[in-house]
């Protein structure tokens, strides 16, 4: 009698254990992000976050990765590095995330370097274009977006080899970004011993008549503009007022639909570097991304930022899959370092190794045609 009751209990206990245990084994993989969701750059941060959320929703609906669901925790830092550190510490120490994904902003992600290095937390695919994230190599930091110097080498190759233009001026924002970009251009021009006319302007200025007149007086046929699209539009207008029509080009920021709103038909024919596919591309991966965002986050708009977030989310799932569902630091790092020519369909194929943590040293040439940016080249490597 007693044995019978006991046996019944044992069976029940076994049954409970069998239903509970798999649930324990399928604990979700927690991933964290810090970005500006409040303040002046909130649109950028929210967009990147939306992208990751769309990717994770899509992956989880299809059953997760290696039987595990992905859980995403995003924290606001208002683009203040000291708050980014607080966010990251909360995510890693309190929420126990296995990695930081798509941290948004150059200064915020640079501020995280000491913390991620010491806590051995993988910091994957930040939305940042800075040199210092992957040079010198950080064991736990991986990027997909090519830094501006790489973009400029791609652009200079195109100007010199394909367009065969040699009278070139760079009108650039006189700050760290602009100087970094010009250094990239100069290095490539210097190799062919071709001079580059350098015309700096201060950030925040609205009067470009001086630099444009100088460029025209220098007899230049091609103007590389390095700044925000609003200023690019002002420069194009200024040149137009002088009745001057040089070839315009710029880094990835110029290749934004915004440029057409600001410069109108004057933007036609301009060239920009594409670091990812444009939103109106016919590539199936882009169409799938836009459909996914419309499905899972119908109240948000697909942007180039959310495309980056989406790709980061998809890449993370791929990494966990390659690591066989393991999410410790060593497994994640070695899974990424094993990626060779991995094509997301949204940008140049990504290649990582133990010596190279910048996944894409390539960009493509985009041209403004009929109010749209069209990619007119393959993905071109920067070397």
């Amino acid at each position, binding site marked *: 009698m007693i044995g019978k009751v006991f046996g019944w209990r044992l069976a029940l206990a076994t049954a409970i254990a069998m239903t509970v245990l798999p649930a324990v084994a399928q604990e979700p993989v927690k991933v964290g992000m810090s970005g500006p*969701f*409040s*303040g002046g750059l*909130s649109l950028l941060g929210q967009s990147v976050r939306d992208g990751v959320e769309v990717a994770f929703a899509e992956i989880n609906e299809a059953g997760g990765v290696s039987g595990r669901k992905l859980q995403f925790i995003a*924290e*606001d830092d*208002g683009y*203040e*590095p*000291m*708050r980014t*550190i*607080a*966010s990251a*510490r*909360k995510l890693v*120490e*309190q929420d126990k995330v296995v990695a930081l994904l798509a941290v948004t902003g150059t*200064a915020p992600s*640079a*501020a995280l*370097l*000491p913390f991620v290095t010491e806590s051995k937390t993988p910091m994957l695919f930040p939305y940042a274009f800075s040199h*210092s994230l992957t040079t010198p190599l950080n064991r736990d930091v991986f990027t997909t977006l090519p830094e501006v110097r790489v973009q400029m080498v791609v652009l200079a190759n195109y100007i010199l080899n394909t367009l065969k233009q040699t009278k070139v001026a760079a009108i650039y924002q006189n*700050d*760290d*970004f602009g100087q970094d970009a010009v250094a990239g251009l100069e290095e490539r021009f210097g190799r062919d011993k071709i001079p580059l006319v350098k015309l700096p302007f201060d950030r925040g200025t609205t009067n470009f008549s001086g630099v444009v007149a100088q460029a025209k007086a220098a007899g230049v046929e091609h103007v590389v503009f390095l700044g925000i699209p609003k200023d690019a539009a002002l420069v194009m207008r200024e040149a137009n007022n002088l009745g001057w029509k040089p070839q315009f080009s710029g880094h990835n920021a110029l290749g934004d639909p915004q440029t057409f709103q600001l410069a109108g038909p004057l933007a036609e024919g301009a060239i920009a570097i594409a670091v990812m596919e444009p939103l109106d591309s016919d590539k199936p991966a882009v169409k799938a991304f836009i459909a996914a965002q419309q499905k899972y986050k119908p109240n948000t708009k697909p942007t180039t930022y959310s495309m980056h977030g989406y790709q980061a989310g998809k890449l993370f799932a791929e990494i966990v899959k390659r690591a066989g569902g393991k999410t410790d630091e060593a497994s994640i790092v070695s899974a990424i370092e094993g990626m060779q020519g991995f094509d997301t369909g949204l940008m140049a194929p990504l290649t990582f190794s133990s010596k190279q943590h910048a996944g894409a040293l390539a960009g493509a040439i985009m041209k403004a045609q009929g109010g749209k940016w069209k990619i007119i080249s393959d993905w071109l490597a920067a070397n």
Partner: protein
Amino acid sequence: MSAAADIERAQRQALPFGTGPILLGVCVAAACAAPFVLNGYGLYVLNLTGVFALVALGLNLLTGYAGQISLCHAAFFGVGAYATAILTQTAGVPYLLSLLVGGLLTACVGAVVAVPAMRLKSLYLAIATLGFGVVLQKIIFEWRSLTNGGGGLALSPPVIGGYELRATGLYYLTLAVVTLGVWGAWNVSRGRTGRALLIIKESEIAAGALGIPAARYKVIAFAISAFYAAVAGGLFAYLVRYIHPENFSVGLSIAFLSMVVIGGLGTIGGSIVGAAFYVIVPELLRGIKDAPGLVFGLLLVIVMVLMPKGLWGLARRIGRRA
């Protein structure tokens, strides 16, 4: 409250024996025990509070006591951060010494800012200091050979006496410096300088009639206040270990002023409460979009309307009633 009452209060501000020291003791004990209770995140937030409390202590001497508005304290904070970082990292000066030298250097800068302050008042002074802050920030940005400009400056952990300071060590250092800072501010506010500053705030003519050289005391107030901000900056630099010129913008100066006003103008406890409010409340409100800014803004309004003496004034009133 009239100047006379303020000055009288300043003279006999010693807490009534009993609850005051006990409360203080509990706070100090809790602060010392924090690293054993909190995780790295909590400790970081507390450390940041300490750093900002130090700035607020200094700014309160200038704004709360002497009635001089400064919108360049973020720049003092930044100069201190860069001076300490460059002295330690590039010149190889021991960390504690470079904290002190950075502070003294910035105190000189503060004294220079005070020169226009001798002639300007209220809004005009605010605008002049605003300009000065922008200039200092621009200098940090443009002096690339020294500061690495917009690339920012990454720092390795500081070393004191062969011992590498990690989160806990740095926290205790901040705690020690804040304690010193409270002690210093306490002495300044109760001494000759504090009383002179209170009269200057009320009426410079009256101060002059009493034979108080207003100009000299304003310079002293600016210098002390800049010293506090700079030492805090030196601690901040090694807490975050990555400093960037854009960290030290006018927005941060306004945040410092808000801390002082929210906490309580002209009180030492208010500086600490204000800093704690500024750092900890947004952390507690994580996840609610735009809430930190909204709550902060609303509270500023509420404090200004309902609590002329800030959070600290309210706490004291409740304390007295209990």
